[in-house]
């Protein structure tokens, strides 16, 4: 058993309001530089939608991630032979137009324009060429546009849904969408690391953060292809690849990552997970299909309260403070204890270490026909008009029926979070629903205690667990959501340098200005 620690995150999608505050916080700190304008290390997508870069989930286009190859895994679009042969021209590289051309506006024209008959306008100009452009695309161009032909209907996750199901999904009355915030997944089997010919990308042993050594990167740009989440970005200014660093300088100094700290909906949880590095290979090569791989990823994660695990962790040099943090970890509870959170697109084979609680909200309310006569009678005679004869049905008479009749089809969620296995999603949604029914009995009181208890028994949750889920979902304070070990001064890079000195530069730990080569 090779016990290691990983700083990991859970996104509670029911709570995400799609405000993009995380993206803006991240951009202001890390990517507000020439060459990095188009990068969004953190971005929020509307699902169903095509995302950023456009259709990134379609690996037939981008060739990211791993694929099964006679019992082993190989990189789909990179690798030793392919990486070196394609080094002069990478046929699978996403280019700037797949993201968007970064732009600004000539604001000064508004002020400096001479007096004239027409209002002055601020024309958009490209941040690459400096010339006026017509803006065709932006990083969140499909925001809230479920149902649109260009975006939602081109979502790669719709694969496996029948045409009728898709149509039903996009009917105006039944339209539903949710938000998907994405950062680098800091995977256990990172494809970017494996694809880098220079060996510039590495996973930190201590906390599992995946980083690119800017001094070793030579712009061979294979990581951009290999990362199936398209979270490794090419800085066209410096000629180096860059990616989310999980705000490691902030974590090392005891602060939450910028995206998490600024999260308005408090959807993010950060904590430590212990995992068994020896199990990674067998999970990858041993699973026969994607669904099995998604399930076996949970087996890699260890129980931090198990004395055997603690002993092995100590022997492996994991500090006591890290073990303690792992025991208090909200991530462990969501992923292992309660089985509510799952990785995004486990089928890509990178073993992503960020987890998502699938959204119940569009599911919970189904549409039902109602007789409005009684309502209409009570209404003001002038306004006596009841537009429709349908209503959102949130009744609990049929306990799990609403999940099956979900507005956001289970298949769709399964394509994203469980490699297509609907039972996993259904189980998680039932648990989330059980918590709601239980709380409704407690607070509203229109449900019998016996019924509430029967529900818990059905999904296999104890009252303790349900209260725990409720607390961590709804009431959790910052210190409950952000549990990482106290900083170890002797290990922190951030503490050895004044970060103000390197403001505006590419990373920490070296004094050389991040100027483009010549």
């Amino acid at each position, binding site marked *: 058993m090779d016990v290691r620690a990983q700083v990991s995150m859970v996104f509670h999608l029911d709570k995400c309001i799609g405000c993009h505050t995380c993206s803006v916080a991240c951009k202001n700190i890390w990517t507000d530089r020439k060459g990095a304008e188009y990068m969004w290390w953190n971005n929020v997508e509307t699902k169903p939608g095509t995302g950023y870069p456009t259709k990134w989930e379609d690996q037939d286009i981008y060739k990211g991630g791993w694929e099964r190859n006679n019992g082993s895994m190989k990189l789909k679009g990179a690798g*030793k032979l392919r*990486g*070196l042969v394609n*080094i*002069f*021209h*990478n*046929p699978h*590289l996403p*280019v*700037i137009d797949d993201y968007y051309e970064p732009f600004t506006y000539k604001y000064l024209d508004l002020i400096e324009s001479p007096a004239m008959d027409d209002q002055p306008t601020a024309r958009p100009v490209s941040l*690459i*060429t*400096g*010339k006026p452009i017509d803006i065709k695309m932006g990083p969140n161009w499909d925001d809230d546009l479920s149902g649109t032909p260009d975006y939602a209907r081109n979502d790669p996750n719709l694969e496996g849904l029948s045409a009728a199901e898709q149509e039903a999904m996009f009917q105006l009355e039944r339209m539903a969408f949710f938000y998907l915030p994405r950062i680098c997944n800091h995977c256990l*089997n*990172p494809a970017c*690391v*494996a694809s*880098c*010919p*220079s*060996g510039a*990308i*590495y*996973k*930190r*042993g*201590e906390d599992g953060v995946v980083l690119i050594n*800017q*001094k*070793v*990167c*030579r*712009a*061979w*740009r294979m990581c*951009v292809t290999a990362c199936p989440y398209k979270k490794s970005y*090419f800085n*066209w*200014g*410096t*000629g*180096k690849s860059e990616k989310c660093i999980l705000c490691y300088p902030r974590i090392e100094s005891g602060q939450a990552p910028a995206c998490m700290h600024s999260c308005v909906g408090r959807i993010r949880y950060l904590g430590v997970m212990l995992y068994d590095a020896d199990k990674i290979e067998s999970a990858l090569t041993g699973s026969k299909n994607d669904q099995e791989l998604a399930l076996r990823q949970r087996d890699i994660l260890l129980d931090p309260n198990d004395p055997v695990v603690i002993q092995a962790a100590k022997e*492996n*040099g*994991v*500090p006591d403070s890290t073990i303690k943090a792992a025991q208090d970890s909200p991530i462990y509870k969501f992923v292992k204890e309660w089985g509510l959170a799952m990785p995004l697109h486990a089928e890509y084979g990178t073993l992503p270490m960020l987890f998502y609680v699938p959204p119940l909200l569009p599911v919970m309310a189904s549409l039902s026909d109602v007789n409005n006569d009684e309502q209409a009678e009570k209404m003001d005679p002038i306004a006596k008009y009841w537009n429709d004869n349908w209503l959102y049905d949130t009744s609990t008479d049929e306990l799990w029926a609403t999940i099956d009749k979900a507005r956001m089809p289970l298949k769709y969620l399964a394509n994203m979070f469980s490699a297509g296995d609907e039972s996993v999603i259904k189980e998680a949604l039932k648990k989330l629903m059980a918590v709601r029914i239980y709380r409704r009995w407690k607070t509203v009181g229109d449900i019998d205690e016996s019924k509430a208890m029967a529900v818990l028994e059905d999904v296999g949750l104890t009252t303790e667990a349900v209260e725990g889920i409720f607390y961590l979902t709804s009431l959790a304070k910052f210190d409950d959501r952000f549990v990482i070990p106290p900083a170890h001064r*002797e*290990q922190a*890079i951030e503490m050895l340098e004044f970060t103000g000195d390197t403001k505006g530069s*590419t990373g920490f730990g*070296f004094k*050389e*200005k*991040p*100027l*483009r*080569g*010549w």
Partner: protein
Amino acid sequence: MGVLDNFLFVGLPYITLVVFLVGTIYRYKATKFNYSSLSSQFLEESSLFWGSMPFHWGLAFLFFGHLIAFLFPSSVLAFNSHPVRLLIIEISAFIAGLLVLFGLCVLFFRRIFNDRLKPVTTKMDIAIELLLITQVVLGLLVAYTSRWGSSWFAAVLTPYLRSLFVLQPEISAITALPFLAKLHIIGANLVFLLIPFSRLVHLLVVPFHYIWRPYQRVVWNISRRSVRDPNTKWTLHRPKNT
């Protein structure tokens, strides 16, 4: 054997060698960040294929051709003793030269005419492209006018280059070469001279080590095992995991 010949064929190569070695090593040590191939594929993809592929593959062929003729002259001469083999090697080298020229022209016009590439194009980039185009054209002309280059390179240039490396320069054979061949030699010096000052440094960091390294890479900043071990002696250097 005038002063000019001495400068061009003795002085210049030594200057080139010193500048090349000192320049590339210093740049690697002092400003490692800017050791990059500075790929522009991200900004412009389609015409890069027609420029970069023929240029790089053709140049690799030509570079190793010159290198083999320098390292194993007698084998090259023996190989060339059969006219069919000589023709094969000359024709394929000439085709490689044409490919390089074609690729370079595509790359050059791409740099000039594409708006998006202007912010990432330096004067040095243009200078190298022009120099390389000149050098390839000269090489093609030499190959066409003074046959058969692959043989006389091994007979004339290899002894000259070796005399340079053993610090006993012998240039009488060189001064007798045709004018175009002399220009090609001077051009080669200039290319090497510019390597430390241009993006060409990326050819020194071609990632062959990728072939034998394991795919995954984990870096430990500190070896906690040895830190925790009471027998580990305290030093200023933190024990690192290997």
